[in-house]
C-alpha cells in the first residue's frame, strides 16, 4: 500500500487525525499547532511544569567503579576484611563470581575522610571531587540488573535490557526539542579512539523518530566525520546543492506529511550545514584560558583526554545542548585497565581511572558553579552497576547490581545529602532502593517532565521512558 492510498483510506475512514496521534509528549491527537512540529521535529516544546534544569551532563563511568572504594565508607567491611561473607549478608542474592565468592576485600591503601559541611565520606582516590562534597547528593541504594556490562549499560541508558528502546537523551530530545538550532540537542562525548564499547544502541532513538538520536562527537578537532565541505566544492556550490535537495525533499514531504524519517532527513542536512561552523567552534578549546586548561588537567597526560571531553561538555552546556552523555574512556590504552572493571588488581585499576576523572570532574563542577551554569545544569555521576564487598581473584571485586552509589549535582538537587544506604559491608542496598527507572524519572522531573506523561505511540502501544516502572525520588529534590 502506498503512502497516498494509505492516507486516503485513513481520511475516508475518518481516522486521519487518530492515525497521526501520539507524537507529542503526553500523547493525544494532532492539533493545528502540531503541524509546525512536522516541519521541525526539534522545535522547542514546553515541559509539563517549570523546569529546574536546562542541561543534563550524564557522566557514565564505563566498566563500573567500586563505589566502596570511592564514596561508600564501611567500617564494618574494614573490620571483617579477610573473612568469609557472613550468611546474613548473602540472603536474597545469587552470585556467579568466577572462582567463587571470595573473602571480604579491603585495600590496605585506602584511607577515608569526611568533607564539607555535609560530612560526606570520600576516599583518597577522589580528593578533588571531595572538595565539592556540598554540591553533591548521593544515592547510596542504587540497584539494577547485573548480567553483563553491555546489558546493564543498555539498561542504564535506555531502561531496557534488549536493544530497541530510546535512550534517556533521546526521550529528552523528543520531549523538549532543541534549544540551539545550530547544534545537536543530544551529544555523546568519549575520550577513546573508538566509540564506547557498548555501541550506539546506548544513544539510539529506538522507536522514536530517528531525528532524536544522540550525535557522537569524536575526539579531535573535527567532531563529525565528513562534516567539512569537500575542498573542490565552493560554499556557494554546496549551498545550491542543499537548496535543491531541500526543495525536492519538501515536495515529497508535502505528499507524505506523516513520514518522520523524511522530516529527519530534511532537518539533518540543514543542521549539518550549520554544524560545519558551529560544531568545530563548540569543541575548539584554543580560546580557553591557561588557568581553565590547567584546572581540567589538560597539562597532565593522565587527565588530558577526559579533561578535554569535560571542557567540551561545559562549552556545549553554554551553547544550549540539552543532554550531554559522557562515557569515560581508557585510563590506559590497552589491557585490563581500559576501564573501571577491576576483577583483579583493583588498586592499580582504580588508581589510574580515578586519577583520570577526579580532577576534571572537580573542575567541571567548579567551572559550572563559577559561571552560574550550575544553577540550570544537572550533573549525574553514574555507572552500570557497582562492585562487590567480597573479593575476586584475590585483589579485585566482582559486579554488584544489589547496592552501589551514584550521585547528582546541580540545579534542583538537595545537595549535601545522601539518599539510601547499603548494608554494613556495602553489599546490598537496604531500605528504599533506586533503580535505573527511578533515576530516569527523577532526572526527567528536574527537566520539567512527568515521566508518566512523556509518551509516544509505537505500533498502537503508548510507551514512556520508564517502561512500566519509575518513581521520582522526591527526597533528592530541593
Amino acid at each position, binding site marked *: 500500500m502506498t503512502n497516498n492510498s494509505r492516507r486516503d483510506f485513513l481520511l475516508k475512514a475518518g481516522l486521519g487525525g487518530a492515525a497521526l496521534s501520539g507524537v507529542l509528549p503526553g500523547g493525544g491527537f494532532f492539533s493545528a499547532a502540531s503541524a509546525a512540529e512536522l516541519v521541525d521535529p526539534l522545535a522547542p516544546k514546553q515541559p509539563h511544569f517549570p523546569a529546574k534544569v536546562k542541561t543534563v551532563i550524564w557522566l557514565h563511568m564505563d566498566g563500573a567503579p567500586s563505589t566502596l572504594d570511592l564514596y561508600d565508607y564501611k567500617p564494618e567491611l574494614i573490620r571483617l576484611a579477610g573473612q568469609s561473607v557472613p550468611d546474613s549478608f548473602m540472603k536474597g542474592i545469587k552470585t556467579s563470581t568466577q572462582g567463587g565468592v571470595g573473602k571480604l576485600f579491603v585495600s590496605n591503601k585506602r584511607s577515608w575522610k569526611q568533607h564539607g559541611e555535609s560530612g560526606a565520606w570520600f576516599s583518597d582516590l577522589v580528593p578533588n571531587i571531595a572538595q565539592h562534597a556540598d554540591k553533591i547528593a548521593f544515592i547510596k541504594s542504587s540497584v539494577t540488573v547485573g548480567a553483563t556490562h553491555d546489558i546493564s549499560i543498555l539498561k542504564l541508558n535506555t531502561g531496557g535490557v534488549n536493544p530497541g528502546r530510546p535512550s534517556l537523551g533521546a526521550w529528552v530530545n523528543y520531549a523538549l526539542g532543541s534549544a540551539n538550532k545550530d547544534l545537536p540537542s543530544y551529544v555523546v562525548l568519549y575520550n577513546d579512539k573508538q566509540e564506547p564499547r557498548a555501541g550506539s544502541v546506548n544513544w539510539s532513538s529506538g522507536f522514536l523518530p530517528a531525528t532524536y538520536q544522540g550525535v557522537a562527537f569524536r575526539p579531535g578537532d573535527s567532531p563529525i566525520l565528513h562534516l567539512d565541505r569537500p575542498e573542490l566544492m565552493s560554499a556557494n556550490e554546496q549551498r545550491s546543492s542543499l537548496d535543491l535537495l531541500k526543495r525536492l525533499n519538501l515536495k515529497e514531504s508535502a505528499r507524505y506529511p506523516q513520514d518522520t524519517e523524511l522530516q529527519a532527513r530534511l532537518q539533518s542536512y540543514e543542521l549539518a550545514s550549520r554544524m560545519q561552523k558551529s560544531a568545530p567552534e563548540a569543541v575548539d578549546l584554543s580560546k580557553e584560558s591557561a588557568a581553565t586548561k590547567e584546572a581540567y588537567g589538560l597539562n597532565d597526560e593522565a587527565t588530558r583526554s577526559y579533561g578535554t571531553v569535560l571542557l567540551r561538555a561545559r562549552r556545549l552546556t553554554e551553547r544550549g545542548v540539552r543532554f550531554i552523555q559522557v562515557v569515560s574512556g581508557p585510563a590506559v590504552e590497552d589491557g585490563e585497565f581500559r576501564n573501571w572493571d577491576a576483577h583483579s588488581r583493583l588498586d592499580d585499576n582504580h588508581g589510574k581511572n580515578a586519577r583520570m576523572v577526579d580532577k576534571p570532574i572537580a573542575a567541571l563542577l567548579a567551572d559550572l558553579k563559577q559561571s552560574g551554569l550550575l544553577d540550570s545544569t544537572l550533573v549525574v555521576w553514574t555507572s552500570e552497576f557497582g562492585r562487590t564487598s567480597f573479593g575476586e581473584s584475590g585483589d579485585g571485586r566482582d559486579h554488584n547490581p544489589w547496592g552501589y552509589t551514584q550521585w547528582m549535582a546541580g540545579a534542583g538537587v538537595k545537595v549535601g545529602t545522601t539518599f539510601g544506604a547499603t548494608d554494613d559491608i556495602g553489599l546490598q542496598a537496604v531500605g528504599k532502593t533506586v533503580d535505573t527507572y527511578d533515576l530516569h524519572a527523577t532526572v526527567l522531573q528536574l527537566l520539567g517532565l512527568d515521566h508518566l506523561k512523556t509518551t509516544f505511540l509505537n505500533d498502537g502501544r503508548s510507551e514512556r521512558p520508564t517502561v512500566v516502572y519509575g*518513581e521520582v525520588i522526591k527526597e533528592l529534590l530541593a
Partner: protein
Amino acid sequence: MRKKILKFGLHLALTGALLSAYASVVDADLMQVMEDKQKSLSSNISLKNAKDALADAKELEEMFKEVGTFYEQKGNASDAVTWSKESRELAGVVVAQAIVANDFDTASRKSVTMAKNCKACHQAYKTTD
C-alpha cells in the same frame, strides 16, 4: 479388585495432575504473559482507554491470584504471598476503581507500584535472569 485398583490409580493420576497444575502454573510463560499484560495496562491507562485498561486490570487480578495460590501451597514463601496479595488488590481494586473514576493519574501511579512488587518478587524467587 481390579476395578478398585483402577479407581485408585485414576484418583492418584487426577490428584497428581491437579497438584502438577498448581505446581506448574507459575512458570516463565505465565510471567511473560503477566509482563505483557502490565505493559498493555500501562499503555491503556496512558491512552485513557478505560474499557481495555479495566479488562487488563481484571486479568492481572486473576493471574496474581494464581501466583499467590502457588506460593501458599509451595510454602516458606510468605513474602511472595504478600506481594501477590498486594498486587492482586492493586490490580483488582485500586487501579480498577481509579480507571472507573477516570482518575488515570492515580491508576498510572498504582500500576507502577504493582510493577515494583513484581520486581521485588523476581529478585527473591526468579531462578534465571
